[in-house]
Structure formats: structure tokens, C-alpha cells
């Protein structure tokens, strides 16, 4: 019974360590950039300017403006494109995670709580999902409904739910055998009551931690889809799309792929650090992938 107050919750007003503050500031900056960036520096996909194409960073453009990060293959400002892309990429990441965690948690809890056949079925589906090439899935969805934001989110969510389901299931299994659940049962509590009051609250922390890791992966996955030509429709800028579009120009315009790549890396790393710190604070024993 060590000093339990040492396991402070985030809510307690102690000074937060740099491990949270710094990445949180960076992430906040990204969110801010995504929200107001496109307003300040609008991106118009049809405002191509051939004379300005493939200009390196810090070049003055034909219309007199300065391109901080250079221009792309049709002469659009890269910074503006990245700001607009941030909005989409962040939105895709968030929406996917919400969807995936909803599906995953629901199935994971059901599988873990009731076990037996339900469990077997859910876990076998998860196996199929894991073994099945997600690219095929992407083609399938993209082809059936055509490329769209909803689609990409759908594909990504479908490829991600398993992670959440596994964590939710494992956590459910441990929680349901905990004594305080027995205590609720001896009060006469129903399964629904137990799931809502005992299991779900215990899932918040690990799911949040998983979500931080997955957040980076999802944004990256969207980028990979774009890379394979299965991403968002042309004209909707995303980081992945920009990186992918720039790869033919590595020889003469390295900045197109590199800049959004760096932006993406920094965000992903910061979210990852946040997740790590969160995990350390919320649940020191959780082994995440």
C-alpha cells in the first residue's frame, strides 16, 4: 500500500511535466493552424499558376507574394496547401478514431464480457481483418462508393477497429473478474449496469492511449491510401496526397514531399509523446503496441 497519492490523476493540479506541455502546445498549434490557417492563407485547388510551378521555398511568386515553403507542380503555394491539408488530415484522423473506437469498443466489450461463441466469432473476424490486405479493402470501398472523405474514413476505421477491440476485450476480461464488479453484482446489478458503470469507465484510459498511437497511424494510413491512388478525391488537399504527388518531383522539387512529411512527422511524434505520457500517468501496466 505505497503512497497512492503518487499516482496522481491528470486532474490534480500539480505542475505538468514537459512531456505533456511541449507536445500539447505543438498539437494545439496544429489544431489552431488547421482551424484558422486556411482562413488566413486560403488554398484554391483550381488556382494553378503554371509560371510559378516547382518554385523552391522562399521564392517570390508572379503575383508578388512570397512562397514560404515553395510551390507544387502546378504552381500552388505549398504552405497554403498544407494548412488546408492539416484540416482534412486532422479531421480524417479524429473521425476515423471515433468511428473505429466505437466499433472496436462495442465489439470488444461484447466479446470480452459474454465470451463464448460471441467472443469466438468477433475474434475470428478480427483475425480475418488482420490477415486480409487492407489495400484490397480500400480498393473495394473506393470502387464501390467512389473516392470520398466518408470512404476514406470508413476504410480506415474498418482497418483500425481491431486494435480497439483487442484492447477493449482484454480490459473487459480483467475488469469483469475484478472484485468491485462482484461487489456490484451482489448488489443485484444488471449486466448493462455493470458495463456502463464498471467496464466502460475503465476503458477510457487505455482506449485514449491507444487512440493517441493510432492517431498518427491513421493520418499516415490516409497518406498511404493517397499514395496508392485510393485516397481522397483530387482537389481535397491532404498531407498524404501532397507527399504522394511530390514523389515524382523528388529530383527537382524535393520540398513537395519533404515539407508535409516533416509536418506530419512532428505532429505524429508529439501525439505519440502525449500518448506515452498519458499511459504512464493513467495506467503504468498497459502494454500497447
Amino acid at each position: 500500500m505505497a503512497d497512492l497519492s503518487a499516482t496522481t490523476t491528470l486532474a490534480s493540479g500539480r505542475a505538468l511535466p514537459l512531456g505533456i506541455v511541449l507536445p500539447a502546445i505543438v498539437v494545439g498549434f496544429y489544431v489552431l493552424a488547421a482551424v484558422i490557417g486556411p482562413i488566413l492563407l486560403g488554398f484554391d485547388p483550381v488556382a494553378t499558376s503554371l509560371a510559378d510551378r516547382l518554385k523552391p521555398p522562399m521564392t517570390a511568386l508572379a503575383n508578388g507574394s512570397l512562397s514560404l515553403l515553395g510551390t507544387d507542380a502546378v504552381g500552388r503555394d505549398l504552405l497554403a496547401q498544407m494548412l488546408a491539408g492539416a484540416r482534412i488530415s486532422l479531421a480524417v484522423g479524429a473521425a476515423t478514431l471515433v468511428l473505429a473506437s466505437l466499433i472496436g469498443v462495442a465489439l470488444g466489450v461484447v466479446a470480452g464480457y459474454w465470451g463464448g461463441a460471441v467472443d469466438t466469432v468477433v475474434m475470428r473476424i478480427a483475425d480475418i481483418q488482420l490477415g486480409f490486405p487492407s489495400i484490397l479493402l480500400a480498393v473495394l470501398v473506393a470502387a464501390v462508393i467512389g473516392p470520398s472523405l466518408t470512404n476514406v474514413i470508413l476504410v480506415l476505421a474498418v482497418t483500425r477497429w481491431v486494435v480497439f477491440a483487442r484492447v477493449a476485450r482484454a480490459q473487459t476480461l480483467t475488469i469483469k473478474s475484478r472484485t468491485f464488479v462482484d461487489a456490484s453484482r451482489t448488489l443485484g446489478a444488471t449486466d448493462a449496469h455493470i458495463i456502463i458503470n464498471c467496464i466502460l469507465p475503465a476503458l477510457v484510459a487505455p482506449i485514449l492511449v491507444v487512440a493517441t498511437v493510432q492517431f498518427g497511424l491513421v493520418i499516415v494510413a490516409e497518406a498511404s491510401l493517397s499514395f496508392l491512388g485510393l485516397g481522397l478525391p483530387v482537389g481535397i488537399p491532404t498531407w498524404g496526397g501532397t507527399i504522394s504527388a511530390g514523389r515524382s518531383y523528388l529530383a527537382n522539387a524535393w520540398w513537395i514531399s519533404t515539407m508535409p512529411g516533416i509536418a506530419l512527422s512532428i505532429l505524429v511524434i508529439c501525439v505519440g509523446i502525449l500518448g506515452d505520457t498519458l499511459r504512464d500517468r493513467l495506467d503504468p501496466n498497459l502494454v500497447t503496441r
Partner: protein
Amino acid sequence: MPPATPSERCLTVSDLAVGFAARGGTILALEDISFHVDAGETLSLLGESGSGKSVSAQAIMALLPDTAVVSSGTVRFDGKDLLALPRRETRRLCGTEMGMVFQDPLTALNPVFTVGDQIAELFRVRQGLGRRAAREAAADVIDTVGIPDARRRLGNYPHQFSGGMRQRLVIAMAIALKPRLLIADEPTTALDVTVQAQIMDLLGRLQREHNMAMLLITHDLGVVADVTDRVAVMYSGRIVETGDVRRVYDRPGHPYTRGLLASVPATAGGGKHQPLATIGGLPPNPQRRPQGCTFHPRCPFAQDICRTERPPMVDLGNGHGATCHFAREMVADDRLFA
């Protein structure tokens, strides 16, 4: 205290203080800890959870985590100050000169190695025996702790043994190289009464056979009485009372010891359905120990002096001492033990 001849003295701890680095300052887990154990003798460290018993043992065995800081004190073993030695040197004494038995026999054994491997490892690594010889030796030790069919069971994994047998294996490991000091940290807490009796018997037998000094750590007042020569009672990182078991139990010089003894339901069945005596309040937070006597907020006899002045160890004769301003009065008070 009657000075024991230095030759039979095995372990001497003086003025030991250990702190832990923690958020919001250090936790002073141990303060002013002094005791000694002689060859062939058993000293019990008695105290409630969190009073610092395990930390004392860890300090002796150089097992303290990195966050721990030994801020003062000496631990003399065999004429050497273990705290002054590099950790590596102290460790070299572990296993051969000092053995340790841990509280939880389930987790104290490595689950993925056979018990044979784990015990033979001692002989191979510490004594340089060959594989076969080490196994033979391992079988012998397992045999001495009373596990039947020792040779065959060498190949079993810890989970294939019952709790009592596991504890015997841990003991086997601790005494395998015939150490001169055995530290047993709550060796029977996880066990049943009947098994506990077996284990305590075993420890007593081994101690007599090897003339070991034993430092027994426990919170069970009953266990202490059976096997111990002397006892040191710990409260909140300090030793509050020390002395011969019978003296301490019969005439406790510290109100805490007194409270502790009173709160055990009488086995004799007296006072049935009578409320038990209790110690009010809670043990102090080690980060904010009270001024003066640390026990004073809970002490029914506390006076003003207790709130301001830290009581010294009061010598009550025959090696009996208590850190209470009113130790002599306590001992003289006959109300509790008629």
C-alpha cells in the same frame, strides 16, 4: 545493552537513514535505524505495513531501487561496512554470506525457469560447479527443506508447486550456500496457519543446524514470539522499541507496542464480544511526519513534550529500550498485563 563480544556479532546496523526521491520531495523511509544480530540468534523486525521493514532488509542486501538514497548510517557485516562498499561488492556477499527469503513465494521464483535451474544457477555461477554437480547440489538442498522426491522435481516449474513448497524452494535458495545471515521478509504471510507452522519450524531447524543469524521481518506478533530471541518494533520508519521478546511483550515500554499487543483478539477466548482495544488515528504520511514523537497524534498518553521533542531511546535494562519519553512509566504500569 550488554555488549556482545564482537566475535559473535554478525550484523550491526547503526543510524541508518534511507530516503526515496519522489514527486514533491523525498520520502524518508528509514531514520535512525540501529540494531544488531548475533550468530545463531534471531532478531525480529516487527511493524505494520509501510513502517520500513522491507526497506531495512533491502538496504542491507544492496537491493534498494535506484530512487533510494542512503543518507546516513553504516551496515557492518563481517567487519565490512556494506554501505561503503560498491554495490557490486556487497552483492558478492549476497547468496554466499547473506541469504534472503521473500514474502511472496509465488512471484519470488522466476516462472519461466525450472526450480532446478534456478537453484543450480547458484552453484554454477557462485561456486563454479559444473552442470551435473550443480544439479546434484540443488537436489540436495531441495531435499534438506523437506520436499520429497527432490531429484525428480528439479525439472518442474514454480507454478507446479503449492504455496508452501514454493516458499521452501525460496528458502532452499537462500540457504543453499550456507550463509551466515538469513534475512526472511515476511516468509509466511502468504501461507496458511498449518503451513506457516511448518515453515517456521523449518527455518528454526536450519538456523540451528547452520548457526545462522536470522533477521525475521514480520507483522504477525504471534510468529515473532515463537521463534525470536529479540524483537525490534518499527513505527513509521523508526525503531520504537527493542529488546528481548518476553520483556517487550510482557512489559512494553512504548505505547505503540502496547496498543499493538492489545488489539490482537485474545486467543484464550477471554473478552468474548467485548470491543477490542484499538489505536486511534492513522499512521503518519512519511512525507509529513509529525514533530516530536511521531506517534504522539495517536498516543493516548501523549503530553506536551511528546509534541515537541523527539524522544531518545530510553534504556530499560537488559537490552530493552523504547523511544518514549515515558518509557519507564509504561513499563511500570501494570494495568494491561496483570
